């Protein structure tokens, strides 16, 4: 026996013991379930053996899809992948019985098996099954997804979404996209252009050139349109872009004003935004179909960054009417606003969670910036990050993860996208081809 094999055997034995202890705490009837709310300290070990290629030519897809499924799961911070060279069992056929003892031996609590085939028309078909190893039973039912070969990553995200849903009981977020601002060049000559990508940074596509400044894109609820602010006319104006056709038009253009900070209502029929007239910036709403506008705030303060509650009944926004930037909630048609932020420092860029239970925000205090979350009445404020400059949170479709912009300081300062879960764990840099800012996370596709 080689030294390496010996090491693995000892490790496997140790894991069998550890695994056995965990099994005893699980009743056989209780499904394998990871409770995200409890704050995951120890990620759940999962095994994702290479999917089986069922047709010639499917080998690369089988390898790549299973790799992305594992990356999706591990990227949540909730799961740990058991390396493939530790696997004892080899899955050579999708229909073969699972050798549970082999997976228990390496302490795989969950197992994902799959198979990939291709047809002559360039379509890729993936099927998968998820297993609760220690209960020796399948989690849910096997499923199958098909796409053109260019869409193979989406197939992987679909599979990972299903596995995530079955293991956590939560709605997933892997098959989603992010629209953001791609940045190149030094701080005093920054070139910005709108771009869209998969949630994990793959498949970047540019939506505008960098001839004029673009800021803060926001997805429509169905992901088909993007609102953003552009200086194309020389003045900040809200544009609306059709993602499929990559065509945009100016949505709001009152002469002598600036408009920015747009965001859709949950039903997509209205847009709330800021308009600056003279020194005053107020929040307005526009009916997208008719173009009719309505003013929602009227103090002389700066009022901006409006965001609807998911039921469309309320709007959270920031105002410096008290003398510094703070968060307020008002009815969706305007009216009395209640201040909800009372901690030290300044609060801006509030975004209502898709679950409706929390508000994410940027906090600025004593020269540091934080991304935080609070209940919608301002209670239970929790700061998730701290840096020289963190800002602009956006929620994953399931309300469990937040993506934001982090800019480093100094002459070489550059911005990048990061994600963090709402317990403050699993801070990760999102892979982008260049600098990046102002992410907006779209819906689950």
């Amino acid at each position, binding site marked *: 026996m080689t030294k390496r094999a010996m090491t693995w055997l000892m490790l496997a034995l140790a894991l069998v013991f550890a695994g056995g202890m965990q099994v005893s705490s699980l009743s056989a009837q209780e499904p394998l379930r990871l409770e995200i709310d409890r704050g995951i300290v120890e990620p759940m070990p999962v095994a994702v053996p290479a999917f089986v290629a069922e047709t010639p030519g499917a080998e690369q897809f089988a390898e790549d899809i299973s790799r992305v499924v594992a990356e999706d799961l591990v990227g949540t911070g909730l799961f740990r992948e058991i390396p493939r060279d530790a696997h004892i069992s080899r899955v050579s056929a999708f229909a073969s019985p699972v050798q549970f003892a082999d997976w228990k031996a390496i302490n795989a609590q969950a197992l994902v098996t799959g198979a990939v085939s291709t047809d002559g028309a360039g379509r890729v078909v993936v099927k998968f099954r998820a297993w609760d190893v220690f209960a020796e039973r399948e989690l849910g039912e096997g499923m199958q997804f098909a796409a053109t070969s260019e869409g193979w990553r989406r197939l992987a995200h679909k599979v990972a979404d299903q596995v995530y849903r079955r293991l956590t009981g939560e709605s997933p977020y892997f098959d989603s996209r992010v629209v953001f601002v791609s940045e190149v060049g030094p*701080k005093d000559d920054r070139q910005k252009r709108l771009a869209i990508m998969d949630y994990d940074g793959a498949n970047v596509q540019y939506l505008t050139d960098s001839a004029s400044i673009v800021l803060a894109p926001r997805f429509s609820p169905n992901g088909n349109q993007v609102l953003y602010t552009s200086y194309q006319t020389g003045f900040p104006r809200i544009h609306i872009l059709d993602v499929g056709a990559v065509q945009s038009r100016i949505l709001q253009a009152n002469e002598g004003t600036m408009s920015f900070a747009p965001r859709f209502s949950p039903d997509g029929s209205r847009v709330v935004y800021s308009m600056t007239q*003279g020194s005053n910036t107020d929040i307005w709403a526009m009916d997208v179909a008719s173009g009719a506008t309505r003013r929602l705030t009227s103090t002389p303060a*700066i009022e901006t*960054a409006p965001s609807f509650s998911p039921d469309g009944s309320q709007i959270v926004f920031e105002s410096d009417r008290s003398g510094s930037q703070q968060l307020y909630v008002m009815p969706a048609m305007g009216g009395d606003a209640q201040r909800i932020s009372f901690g030290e420092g300044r609060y801006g860029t509030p975004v209502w969670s898709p679950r409706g239970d929390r508000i994410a925000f940027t906090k600025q205090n004593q020269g540091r910036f934080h991304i935080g979350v609070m209940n919608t009445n301002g209670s239970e404020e929790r700061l998730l990050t701290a840096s020289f400059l963190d800002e602009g949170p956006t929620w994953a479709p399931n309300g469990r993860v937040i993506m934001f912009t982090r800019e480093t300081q100094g002459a070489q300062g550059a911005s990048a996208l990061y994600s963090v879960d709402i317990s403050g764990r699993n801070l990760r840099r999102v892979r982008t081809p260049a600098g990046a800012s102002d992410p907006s996370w779209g819906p689950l596709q």
Partner: protein
Amino acid sequence: MQHLPKALMLVAALAVAGCTNPNRFGAGADGAGGAGMGANNGVTSGVLPGSVDDPTSTAYFNQRVGDRVLFAVDQSSLSAEGRAILDGQAQWLTTNSDYMAVIEGHADEQGTREYNLALGARRANAVMEYLVSRGISQSRLKFVSYGKERPLEVCSTEACYSKNRRAVTVIAAGSLMG
């Protein structure tokens, strides 16, 4: 303090030129527009039209009059130095009545993007209102804010921030688009 040397330079330039062109400190400016370029004025015949020594040039406006005012952290109120600069701008715009101006407001990087856009607008608007109060027609002026998108200085200390918190009066010929 940043502006005193510029003011001194301006006085010096006017003294050397010895002409009756825009004089932000007193009388004698009215009706003298364009004299600096006139061939009938021997004193200024060496001045290259459009150069910084040509009082009707935008280069003169930018460098001798001073095209920008600076602001304190989070503030949009004009300092005494700022008002002195703007008095000079108003005088220049009065004399050079063919020009329009776009006032560009800026913020430093310590702030969220959208708030800084609105803050830059407050600063630019403060400049615009001041120029209007000094007799410049509002129809010749526009303002725009770049928030923290266009810093001049790139360090992350107050030395740079203080120069980035600015409103810049950009002179343009003809009508303003927007």
